[in-house]
């Protein structure tokens, strides 16, 4: 047990390092640019409607104080971390004066739910089918499935989402193609709301599953066709161990281990895919928020979204990593 504890501790320290580095990087990317966020924000706001000069000056002063752009970079950096740890990154511009963090926290559950559900479905189904395809190499259905996923897998998230949008938005409009729930349903704990959320999640989730499933299917198929040549599988087959037992506890169980590492390593990429899919289907998650923030020139909100998403992905990776020793008893010994 102490082995596992030190493993957990090591991972947590690593996670903190990764998040700190990622968030700092986003800070410096945004702050080392020659563009002054205050000017940019002022330009954007004043471009829309006529403002009196003194109001503009007032706005500029307020924003300068808010962003602290007149201070040295390192001081800004320190105060950025201070505010981030308190969960306060100032008000958003696009939904002024709602705090940026509030917007992020409102969007986070949508993205988190979409991501968790689709990743689970994709990983479990993809690995199961891929594993069976690797073991029963002559099965017609699994062969066909392999060819289809091979065609789908390299296509980027955006294209798949877009094709679904065209099919279900224009050619055969049976599913809602936009939003997180229907406009006429009140948000709350009701069956109606839950049904509406599910209905709206079908297309974004489907496009994420369609793209993602191929990676696991093809990966697992390749892994299994290597595992079946291992001595412990050959020997169990020779000994007449029940085929079902061999597939489950000998083949899939062993091939699953590298796939779990694969999951941890690909969560960042999957998150990127979610961002895009959300935008296509106008889903009210972090992705849509990020893109709105960029389009609205909302400096604080952009930083808030990227910081929170880096942290969220980091935590998700940690959770997957912590499952690893449960699957592989050899890790504990180290």
């Amino acid at each position, binding site marked *: 047990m102490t082995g596992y504890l030190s493993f957990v501790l090591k991972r947590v320290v690593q996670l903190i390092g990764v998040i700190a580095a990622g968030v700092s990087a986003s800070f410096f990317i945004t702050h080392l640019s020659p563009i002054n966020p205050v000017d940019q924000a002022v330009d954007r706001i004043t471009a829309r409607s006529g403002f009196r000069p003194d109001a503009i000056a007032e706005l500029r002063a307020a924003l300068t104080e808010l962003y602290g752009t007149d201070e040295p970079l390192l001081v800004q950096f320190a105060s950025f971390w201070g505010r981030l740890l308190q969960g306060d990154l100032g008000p958003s511009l696009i939904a002024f004066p709602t705090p940026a963090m509030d917007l992020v926290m409102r969007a986070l559950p949508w993205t988190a739910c979409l991501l968790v559900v689709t990743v689970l479905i994709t990983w479990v189904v993809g690995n199961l089918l891929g594993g069976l395809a690797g073991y029963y190499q002559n099965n017609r259905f699994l062969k066909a499935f392999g060819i289809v996923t091979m065609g789908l897998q390299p296509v980027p998230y955006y294209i798949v989402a877009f094709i679904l949008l065209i099919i279900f938005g224009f050619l055969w409009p049976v599913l809602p193609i936009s939003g997180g729930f229907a406009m006429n349903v009140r948000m709350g704990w009701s069956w109606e709301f839950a049904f509406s959320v599910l209905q709206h999640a079908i297309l974004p989730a489907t496009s994420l599953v369609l793209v993602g499933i191929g990676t696991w299917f093809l990966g697992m198929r390749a892994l299994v066709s290597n595992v079946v040549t*291992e001595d*412990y599988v*050959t020997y169990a087959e020779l000994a*007449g161990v029940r085929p079902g037992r061999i597939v489950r506890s000998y083949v899939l169980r062993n091939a699953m*281990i590298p796939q779990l590492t694969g999951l941890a390593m690909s969560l960042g990429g999957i998150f990127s895919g979610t961002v895009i899919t959300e935008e296509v289907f106008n889903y009210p998650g972090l992705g849509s928020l990020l893109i709105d923030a960029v389009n609205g020139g909302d400096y604080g909100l952009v930083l808030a979204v990227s910081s929170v998403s880096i942290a969220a992905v980091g935590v998700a990776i940690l959770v997957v990593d912590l499952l690893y020793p449960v699957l592989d008893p050899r890790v504990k010994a180290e």
Partner: protein
Amino acid sequence: MSEDLLTVQGLQAYYQMNYFGVRREVRAVEDITMSVRRNEVYGIAGESSSGKTSFIKVLAAAIRPPLRIIEGSVRYNFDGLSVDVAQAGKAQIEAIRWRHLSYIMQGSMSVLNPVRRIGRIFEDYASRPLELTGEALRERVVAHLGRLKLGPEVLSAYPHELSGGMRQRVTIGLATVCHPQFIIADEPTTALDVVVQKEVLGLIREIQQEMGSSVVFVTHDMSVHANIADRVGIIYAGRLVEEGPTRQMFFAPKHPYTAHLVASLPRIGDTMQRPALEGRPPNLAEPPSGCRFNPRCPLAVDKCRQEAPPLETVAPDHRTACWRWRDVAPLVQPAVKLWERA
């Protein structure tokens, strides 16, 4: 003869492959006739790619395409149960597998599923043939492990938590837990260091004698045969070329190939260089005509190149397939008492 545990009659097993429409045939096992008695250790020797691996695959009823049995029979006579591997259906094979016919594989380190506890592995292997589950099965396994000097605590361990020697015992235990009458040991000592090798040999011998089972022991290492086998059969290019009691095979081989194998064994105090056998083992896809050993044989004459010699009895219990078996004696190096090392 009916009391022999295993009788192989005129066995031919080929690999038949199909590369993009081109048929290829590898004659891995060509007309082998032999038998294994009750309670004996029968050693099979031969170079790699001599067909010995294919032969024991047939014996172990582990025939998978592209390997096919073309002709012949492989009949086991277990107590009250007679099965011909060449004819038997899946169910018949399942009925003898592990219960009567067991297998020890090379590389005991890798035959144990790394993510499964030893106890569960024993359950997987022994539950069906023994028709036992739960506590009854556990008792049986613990008793058997005790015989191998392993405590019951290994059952809750993962393979990587055991030492190399313990894993060897576990593997042998796994193969013998059902008290099989016939055990095929496929190079179980290859790639082990000499000390462990000796321990494993001792263990297999011990278990074999205790249970009165028969063992077919396969290795290319003649000195191992000297230590463990009662009789030895030599396979060359898919054929059984000589078979006889171990002692005679070493002192009075009747086939030039056996003579070469014995001669190339190292001896204490001997610094003489030994001539290597010329040429390479024949390609089994296009074997040479006549005796398959003729291109490398120092005694080869025209007859050897034209006609394959039959396996004939030349002494009690001793058979050889050579036209010139009477002339082999001068090739034999001064006798050595190899097995006295045992």
